[in-house]
């Protein structure tokens, strides 16, 4: 078996610049989990159908199992490990914890990042908009009810904080 040779890419992950040697057939998900040991990003299906591998690429949610690492060279990636700052949970994380939106937690990283991206562009989404935004993220535990409420509350909290500023 011959293997394609590695390429050097640079990648900004959670604010840090990395220079990485990767084979061109490796996915962003594999590189994040196996090379950078950022295991918060999960694999649930490897065919783009579950959303557990969602990360933010230049701010937009993407399925890291469907992207080759070499194709995102030079871009900015945020994983779940990069969301909380100074030990302070992001409002979406906080709402997920407080309002029972997490059970087994396997879908939570992808779900939280998808929700964050939604609220970044639409701070006051309707229930339908929330459901649509997370419709590609499967959760088997919660039935989605508490996830949808948590995202709604997180949006309100973010709006509340920024209107006080």
């Amino acid at each position, binding site marked *: *078996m011959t*293997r394609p040779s590695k390429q050097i890419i640079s990648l900004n992950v959670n604010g840090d610049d990395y220079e990485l040697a990767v084979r061109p057939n490796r996915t962003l998900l594999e590189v994040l*989990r196996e090379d950078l*040991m*950022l*295991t*918060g*990003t*999960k*694999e*649930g*299906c*490897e*065919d783009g*159908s*579950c959303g*557990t591998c969602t990360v933010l690429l230049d701010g937009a949610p993407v399925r890291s199992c469907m992207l080759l690492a070499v194709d995102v060279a030079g871009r900015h990636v945020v*994983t*779940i*490990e990069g*969301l*909380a700052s100074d030990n302070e*949970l992001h409002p979406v*994380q*906080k709402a*997920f*914890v*407080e*309002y*029972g939106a*997490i*059970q*087994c*937690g*396997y*879908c*939570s*990283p992808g779900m*939280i990042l998808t929700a964050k991206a939604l609220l970044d562009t639409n701070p006051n989404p309707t229930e339908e908009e*929330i*459901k*649509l935004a*997370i*419709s*590609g*993220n*499967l*959760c*088997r*535990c*919660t*039935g*989605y*009810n*508490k*996830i*949808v409420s948590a995202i709604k509350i997180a949006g309100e909290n973010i709006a509340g904080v920024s209107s006080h500023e």
Partner: protein
Amino acid sequence: MNNNDLKYVGKPVPRKDGPLKATGGAQYTVDISLPGMLVGKVLRSPYPHARILNIDTSQAKKLPGVKAVVTSADSLKVKHGFIDTPRYPADQYPIAVDMVRHAGEEIAGVAAIDEDTANEALSLIHVEYERLPAVFDPEEAMKLDAPEIHPNHPKVSDPYKNIGGKIETAFGDIEKAFTGSYLIREDKFYCQIRTHGYMEPQATVASWDHSSKLNVWTSSMGVFLKRARLARTLGLPFGSVRILKTYVGGAFGGKIDLYGHEYIASLLSMKCRLPVKIVYTREEVFKAARHGQPLIVEIKTGVKRDGTILGQQIRTINDSGAYRGSGVVAIFLAWGFAMAPYRIPSMQYEGYSVYTNNLVRAPQRGHGAPKMRFAAESQFDVIAEELGMDPIDFRLKNARNPGDMLPNGDSVKNFGLKECIAKVAEKTDFKAKYEAALKERHSGSTIKRGIGIGTTAYFSGSLVYPNSSTVIVRFNDDASVSVMTGALDIGQGCETVISQIVAEELGVPLNEIHVHAADTETTPVDIGSWISGLTYVTGNAAKKAASHAMKKLLNVAAQELGSEVQELIALDKTIFVGHSPDRKISYGQAIAASIAKNKGDCIIGEGHFRTMKDEVSPPSLSTAKGRWTENYSNYAQVAEVEVDTETGMVRILKATTAHDCGFPVNPVLVEGQIDGQVSMGQGHILSEELRVEDGCVINPSFLEYKMPCALDMVETDYIDVITETYDKEHHYNTKEVGEGYVSGTVASVANAIYNAIGIRVKKTPVHPQDIIDALEKHEHGGKGDLTR
């Protein structure tokens, strides 16, 4: 103590592991990485039934980067089984020996330095097979001329060679009941195979260390059962196998029993003395893991003119797949779910678990209840309609009362079923909506609305290995608390619930309670997260352990304060003399005093709990005799649906659940369990089906196997029916909350579809095309049942 005086128990506190899970810090088995760890892969049979003539691993072994290859020749050839009793001896090797009986069965394992090498090694293993005739339909497999799947196996039902399990039980006089009946109905219902849909795939890391100990991290539902099965099949003493805690990304019944990959990872690691990790691909989960139990239910019920049930005769057939798995348990439980909720004076039940060449079955949330309740509740509605009764009155007439004795000797001492039915009917305005839908059926609109009810009673723990739980509660020097429990949190939140109970008993805040869980080496035995008894059994053990520690603490305080224990009051980690509150001692000081003056006693409490303490063994799987459980939970669920008669689409508008779980230790976790089950029930009745052709799964992806997504979300509402209290002096009786509702959803949606369009659902799932076909048949004067 009144439930209102409680500070931690009964409160919707956020789960303790929430922040860790929300930040990506929770380590699941798939995340474990050890120095020198190898990638393990499993070679699986492509055929559903074949003799293995030869396995040649020589080329695979020679491939650079391959560190170990194992087949059954490396194993001790010890069989295992979900059930292992004299009547039902273990019937499955963890790695195939000479025969394969289902597609996907494990034949060999490899460990290599990376995934590509491991996959290449698999392709270099050459297996010669002799294909054998196979059978896939359980009713076909029951015929005398069917291919025999386990030729050398003791037969439970001669001359039928593929019947792997049979249960027969009866009470009352069924003949008399039917002769005296005003109306008798006979119906047949079918349920499909569904997968559990846990988001974390099956995964195991095994590491044989230098002290000859096998350390295993595995995505499971209880570490002690895994240890027992793994140690036995590997021929190791229990003390040489350690299962460690990992977070678990969902299980729903699908991660209890020993799986071939857990054994193979262990064998590989023992062979090459390096850690080995096996993670299934999602396709592998679909094609080779165990899934739920498809069940056929034939049910005949006789009633009096006023709706009183006189007798019921039931026959179930379960396709258990190539090995017994939990098939014989499913047919036992199906009986239980038929006899528990309603008064049925005479019953005759027979259940068959039949070997086929399909994948092996595992328990699945509800384990028989969704299918049995779907059948029984659907037939209740048919009968009620024929008698001119409404579904609520029919159920209220026949539901059990608190204190009723069941035919197996269980008492339903605190049964809230009637209250659940009455409350849910009232809150949903059931009767008015039901009548309105009947009138609407003949209106011109193509969108029809309907309302339906489904009910359940569910068991709360039974006597199955490891049978009981022990918890240790230890005060630390700073008066924070460490709790040692073997319980494994699989997402239901048991670590949080145990912490709430300990916090309540000790008066120590939740954030100062540290749970050390689910490690066979360092935590005491636990009943497991799979028999619906954890909050009851482990929770009571935690309560006893905490009160034991508290008693010791108060004794020291009494010594130090020169008072009697009865005079003491504990508040905010300080102990006061009630009548002179300036005489006080902090918990920390009391602990120090205990260490200084009580021979170093640092204050450790210990608690054990076993359900049905006077019973020696679980109920019989062949006769159903013997006690089953101590506490029955109850639910009544109402679904409101909308059916588009042009497209056949069914939408569940709302599911309202009245539930008696004794009392909710953590209401927000209880709601989470209900929501999740509504969603699973929705998948069961409307979309999910594992499609199998000649024993091979042909839709092995979430793209082709439709689980509900956020757009399908059902609005939920809850009604608490509280039948128990939490009392500091005694053990408490809380009930199951994580499995039963799934049945209410299936049954209530089926009944709501009938209410909307007059089509009786007799098989699941209900595809839009099924609705259209049934409506068409109906229009042409046919009966219009939606069936196979």
